[in-house]
């Protein structure tokens, strides 16, 4: 029987390397996936431009952040980017509404099949992709300021006397807190407000909702606004936690899609669960359990190998394996997704 400290050590290792990073990454994916899923639920197409819109929103936020910083404005221990966020969201909302006006609305009015809209979003993806690089360049941008840590690994060690450290970055804390608030807000909005209810009605049955006097243009507009806000926030949080680079954001599209679909596309709750499923499966499946097990078993049983199910080089493939398996076992995702 391992001693208490051993168990605690094992627990701390696991929390530090699996739980906390998974939670933060999962929250970022979940917010991204929420945007994808809302657009899918209301506008009925998979928006391939999502990753690049995310980059666009983050870019605007960064530019505003720099401007604020140059004015000497700061947000105390919190990153200035949070102050810049509203303007970033405004910029993204503008972009979404403009693309809707010039691209998507035409196909919606024509009742084109969803694939046409998907293709159109591909076009938007290319354009925004180029635009973002054009404006801010391809470089890595760091825009985090303020206090970096809520808890440092070394401080934790001295505090508890344990072997293992536990670190919580403020960006991780902010991410999780904002994600929780946003999700609560979104659900309140969808369940309680008139606009939210009309969105749900529209998503559930377009024709019926039109008969009951819902203004489709308004629903679409609100959807874009919410999706743009969620997307920008997800992008900014991701950028604060890691760093911003257009290419990375483009690459985020695939795990975000995987998250939305695993959860059940068109279902907000599914997007959130999907985000965490993808994030945790990436970490859990490629994590070597050697250290954890070593703490828990008697010394003589200590494992020699790494106890790793799959090498980290397959990390990216893991989310897709999960995706394919979920699709096979439960074709509509964990929470039954919408059928178009």
């Amino acid at each position: 029987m391992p001693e208490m400290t051993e168990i605690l050590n094992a627990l701390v290792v696991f929390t530090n390397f699996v739980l906390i990073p998974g939670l933060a990454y999962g929250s970022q994916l979940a917010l991204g996936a929420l945007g994808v899923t809302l657009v899918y639920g209301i506008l009925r197409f998979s928006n391939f431009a999502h990753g690049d819109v995310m980059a666009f929103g983050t870019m605007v936020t960064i530019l505003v952040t720099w401007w604020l910083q140059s004015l000497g404005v700061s947000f105390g221990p919190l990153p200035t980017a949070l102050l810049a966020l509203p303007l970033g969201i405004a910029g993204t909302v503008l972009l979404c509404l403009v693309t809707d006006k010039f691209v998507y609305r035409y196909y919606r009015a024509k009742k084109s099949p969803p694939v046409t809209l998907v293709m159109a979003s591909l076009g938007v993806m290319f354009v925004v992709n180029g635009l973002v690089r054009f404006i801010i360049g391809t470089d890595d941008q760091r825009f985090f300021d303020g206090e970096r840590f809520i808890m440092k690994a070394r401080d934790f060690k001295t505090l508890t006397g344990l072997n293992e450290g536990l670190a919580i970055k403020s960006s991780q804390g902010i991410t999780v807190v904002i994600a929780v608030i946003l999700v609560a807000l979104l659900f309140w909005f969808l369940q309680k407000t008139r606009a939210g209810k009309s969105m749900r009605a529209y998503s559930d049955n377009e024709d019926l909702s039109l008969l009951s006097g819902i203004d489709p243009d308004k629903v679409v507009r609100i959807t874009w606004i919410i999706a743009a806000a969620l997307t920008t926030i997800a992008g900014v949080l991701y950028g604060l936690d890691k760093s911003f680079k257009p290419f990375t954001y483009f690459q985020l599209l695939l795990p975000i899609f995987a998250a939305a679909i695993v959860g059940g596309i068109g279902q907000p709750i599914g997007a959130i669960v999907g985000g965490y499923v993808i994030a945790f499966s990436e970490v859990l499946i490629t994590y070597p359990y050697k250290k954890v097990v070593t703490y828990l078993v008697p010394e003589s049983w200590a494992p020699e190998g790494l106890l790793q199910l799959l090498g980290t080089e397959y990390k990216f493939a893991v989310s897709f394996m999960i995706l394919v398996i979920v699709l096979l076992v439960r074709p509509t995702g964990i929470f039954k997704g919408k059928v178009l």
Partner: protein
Amino acid sequence: MKLNQLNNATRATLAFSAMAGALILVGVGQSWALSLTILNLCLISSVMALGVNIQWGYAGLFNIGIMGFAALGGAAAMLVSTPPVGNAWAAGSWNILFSALCFVGTIVAAWQVHKKLKNSRFQTIVMIAVLVTGYMLTRSFFDPAVDAVEATDSAKTGFLGGLGLPIILSWPVGGVLAAGAAWIIGKVALGLRSDYLAIATLGISEIVVAILKNEDWLTRGVKNVNGLSRPVPYELDLHHSEWFISLVEKFRASDLAGLEGLAREAVLKEAITESAGVFVKLCYAGLFTAVLVIILTLCVLALNSPWGRMMRAIRDNETAAEAMGKDVTGRHLQIFILGSAVCGIAGAMLTTLDGQLTPTSYIPLRFTFLIWVMVIVGGSGNNLGSILGGFLIWFVWIEAEPAGVWLMNTLTAWLPEGNSVKNHLVQSAQHMRLVVMGLVLLLVMRFTPGGIIPETSK
């Protein structure tokens, strides 16, 4: 007269003439070698677009895993043409053999369990036991084999190599490999709703590429395999070939006329270098055109037969087609395999032209999204349309770069040298490629929704 009112034959004629004109313009204005390089890739792109058109245009299957099939074709090119690495085989052959036996044995055993113990409540338990034991047995032979193979002169080889056969054989082999993968994916995913099929294909193609990148014993992974053999002559050999030199002398007789000695030699040398490049590219172009023509002919024959009619009917309305006695699932599988095989062939051709297998080059932007743009812009459901799309989009993809630079320089010409806005714009000109591609797609979709050469009714 508006473009929309033109009939298809006119559209095709106009579009292909314009395309030919553009290539000729590049030939005259830039260089013939560049023009032919673009042409060759246009041809390959067209084949790939045809493959996607078979799936999407004929039957409405939304496959966004093209990258995976192209990568399998590429792997085939390498595996067929590279000579086997003797040392690596010596180091790992027995273990590889055993692990292969174990793998096959596991599959057979699992199949037997599935058949014999159907409806038995032990089925799941026995199945899991068989699979786990099989997996561990296979790994126990496989892991040391991999280590041994990868340790064999890892800087230069570190993989098993291939069969050492002529690379042109790899084109059909690439098709077969892709078809095999498509069969498995189709069996698994074609029961799903269409947009989920798309995501499943996307996921599986990522997995295929991950394997190519990380299974070094098989493909050398990210270290690439260079110098694949060619199905056409090498330029450097041509430089010293008597027949080629005399050929060039004949063709360039007017340039050489009146020149003597050193001057003549210099002109001749330049002419030979230039012609050798053009000659090799023409050889490739001939091969690729042959493949394209064969596949196109088969496509046209098939699309205009009852088979094509049946497929289009399935695309239009699966339920009704099913009620009219068509085996929708079976036909979907068939067409998914056919289309994927064509993509595989194109993938093998591309790797042949590159002369190397570079697993990191398989990215969705280039191999999936770009091909889709070709099909949609060219005209889905129309064979000539997707070929045109392949030509046009690849041409734009390549030429958007210099055009972007030119545009930025022109736009900023009035700004003083060293102006930061000017610098920024000129430095960022490369990103025009993406913007242009997006705009082409959006504009074509908006103003000629069926593509430049849309589908025709019969």
